[in-house]
């Protein structure tokens, strides 16, 4: 057991300070130490995508990174998507199109889509499908997720 190191991160705009062993996964640090339970862990080997967060603006799998690597970083998790108690257009579209069932993959899906629509505000359906293909969902059959991404893109274009 190695000594704990200090970890200083900004998550959803809030500064956090904690201590973690070098081997502690970032996903575990977020959940266990910061009690940000929105980020889910489905495989801990980088495939399911449930643990996806934005790390300095880029989507990463928090189960594939150590907490100590996050020092100084700005992180966004699912808890940070809605603002001022109002759903983000992506969240609204997920609700309207029934793009979630059990909701366990949803945090990873939302973060992935959030980043994707920033990069590509006017996607084709094929692009939207490919964008979410890195996150596994066992419930929905994906069709309604793709529909929601397309609808969210439109909502956001209108709002912009």
């Amino acid at each position: 057991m190695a000594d704990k190191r200090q970890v200083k991160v900004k998550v959803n705009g809030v500064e956090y300070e904690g201590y973690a062993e070098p081997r502690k996964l970032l996903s575990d640090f977020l959940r266990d130490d910061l009690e940000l339970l929105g980020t889910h862990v489905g495989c801990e080997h980088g495939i399911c995508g449930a643990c996806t967060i934005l790390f300095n603006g880029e989507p990463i799998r928090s189960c594939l990174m150590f907490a100590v690597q996050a020092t100084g970083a700005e992180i966004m998790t699912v808890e940070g998507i809605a603002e001022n108690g109002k759903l983000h257009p992506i969240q609204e579209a997920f609700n309207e199109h029934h793009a979630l069932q059990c909701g366990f993959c949803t945090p990873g899906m939302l973060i992935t889509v959030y980043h994707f629509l920033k990069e590509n505000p006017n996607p084709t359906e094929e692009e939207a499908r490919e964008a979410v293909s890195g996150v596994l969902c066992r419930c929905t059959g994906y069709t309604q997720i793709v529909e929601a991404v397309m609808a969210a893109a439109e909502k956001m274009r209108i709002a912009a």
Partner: protein
Amino acid sequence: MSGEKKKWVGSSYKRKEDMRLLTGRGTFMDDILLPNMKHAAILRSPYAHAKILDVDISEALKAPGVIGVVTGEDVKKASKPYPCGVTIPTKYYTCAVDKVRFVGEPVAVVVADNRYLAEDALDLIEVDYDPLEAVVDIEKAIEPDAPVLHENIGSNIYNHRFFKYGTDWDTLCQEADEVVKWKFNFPKYAGSPIETYGVIASYSSFENSYVVYNNYQGPFVNHALTAMALGIPENKMRWIIPTDIGGGFGTKTGIYPYCALMSIVAKKTGVTVKWIEDRREHLLASATCTDRVTYIEAAVRKDGKILGLKDKAMDTTGGYIRPPEPGCAYRSTGNHTGAYDIRNLDREVYIVATNKGLTAPLRGYGCQELYFSTERITDMAAAKLGIDPAEIRFKNFVQPEQMPYTTATGGYYDVGNYPAAFQKCLDIVEYDKMREYQKKARAEGRLVGIGLASVVDPSVTNIAYVAIGKTIEERKNERDKSGSGEAAIVKVDPLGGITVICSTNPQGQGHETVISQIIADEFGVHPDEVVVDSVLDSSDRLYSITTGSFSSRFASSGTTAIVRASRQCIEKAKKIAAHLMKIKVEDVVMEEGKFFAKDKPEKAIKLRHIAGAAHWNQYDLPEGIDAGLFGTSLWTMPTSRPPDGKDRVNSSNTYGFVAEAIVVEVDQETGEITFLKWASVHDAGTILNPQIVRGQVLGSIVQAIGGSMYEEQAYDEHGQCLTASFADYLCPTAMEMPKVDVDHFESPSVLTALGSKGAGEGSSMSVPPAIGNAIADALAPLGVVVDELPLSPSKIWHMIDEAKAKTN
């Protein structure tokens, strides 16, 4: 009541659950944090078959942060083997005792301050194994010289039964023009919910009682059986299932052994223990469907009429058999002949021990295994007779005028119009046009195929089916079992708000939303005003052995319990209203949440006022009426009877119908499959929420695509599991999901309050045979026979390659 136009039921009301789930505020198993909670990790067997000579935990106990270690010896002392519905003496403990029988079987549990430390200590446990020869192949396992898994049974046969319904097989063969036979292999695959299993257990020595949080999906019969295994009264073991479960699909019916194991661990270590399964553990050792070998024969007349079926199905439940097995073979008893009017059936069943992971119901439970063989042999019979696969189905369907129809095996189909629903599916896929298209494509040398499947989708299992695992003689000495009960409590608080406590234990099916819609219609309120509590706590919720979400029970029995509890509550409200208005109860009318005298609608009183009277002025209530305002129901379907003396049983209670029509093209060079067109038509009775039903259908389709093409819990001949990560166990991604036209043909059930039947499992059963039939049709010009799944591109490529080598 069914068929009546409702305001909210039948609309795509947006899901209420989504608000918390979209904002990261769900409460899943791993989100539950209790004071002084410690963490468990499980040491698992690296061998498929071995004797355990010694387990040395002394070093592990000295490791940093370790609180205690539990081994198989402890488990043997603290519990009894799980009871199971077969006659052989089974010995399923929740942790290996003396011997391991599959890779991943629990051998010891470490409890430490955190999960990292617990896992560190696992490496310090020394287990001395004496490896034994393993057997993984079902048919090899029952050969006389096969290594025996359970010495006390003496063979690898957990269960073996014969059944005969109708005319004797040999006589039938003489009447038939053709007897078509083949052997089929069905693979072992899993639900793989993204949330794995989780348990938090604590024990109080003062009350000798346990509290166990877990994400079990039901049926609650295993709550009773776990209490029996632990040797404690059922009410001393409180299970609490959190609001949110991250997918179930049947797989989460397999958690209960871990509830027992962690209870034992909590008792021995004296601390509150949390165990969250990791993905590797889940893929190795949670639960899959059974893999099955089926030898099937169909006796057919020249005109396509199927006179009878004969089949021998051999399932393996892996290293042990545990409840609700042997249900894999018997849950589909009543619908064995599917959508067809077949009166004669000759059946043989084997449930076999092999050194593989254990099983549990998987979405469709037993039906995909069954229909893969029956629907494939139907196509083979059609080919042999030179009849179109659609035509042979029309020739054999149970006709609408035969409803209600009792099958040869005891199933009671209350309603349905199979030919019309099937025709609808053919119309959507433009069947005739696609056959023309196929002709042209074939002429160009392309491999295009059309696959059909038409199946009956049984829902709301009647637990009576489990008894079929025993012979009629053996059953005579036992009490009958039957039932499908589901519970609900509807209560109106002192300020008039309605709360529903459901026992349906959802895992993403939107019960909170649909219940709110039902209550809104019943009470004349807005769905947003209704609060639904879906936590299932065995200490204060109504439940029975059939409680839970499995076999698509919610839409039929769950909703009926809700309606009955609501109406009970409304009846009481009417009595109070009559008392307040000083009129006769018969003269009270309730409309849109208001109660009034038939002739004085202008003098209405609101539900809120009646609730007020019931709670705030308890003295002034009609005689014989309790205070408060609530209704309860634990409703069982009247069709849930025990098996009869001829092995017939109505194994489910509502029977939907699914027609699948799939057009595929196979790439000769790569074996890759492209879905050109897909129509999926469902008769799920009355649709309660179209958007949710669509989600259920698409979800079952993607899982069935997985099982048919990509997913398999695979083993080498030594019983090593080859698919212990998501890099090897391949779940379909968004890229693998084709466009599917989903449509409905509603024939409302006459047995349920709202006319609904189940909808969540249909395509799990129909897609595997439909994909099999489509690929078989595509490859037919090459002389390739399709008789197993999964049909991955590489397997198809090999099949094409072999066929070409033969012809060259």
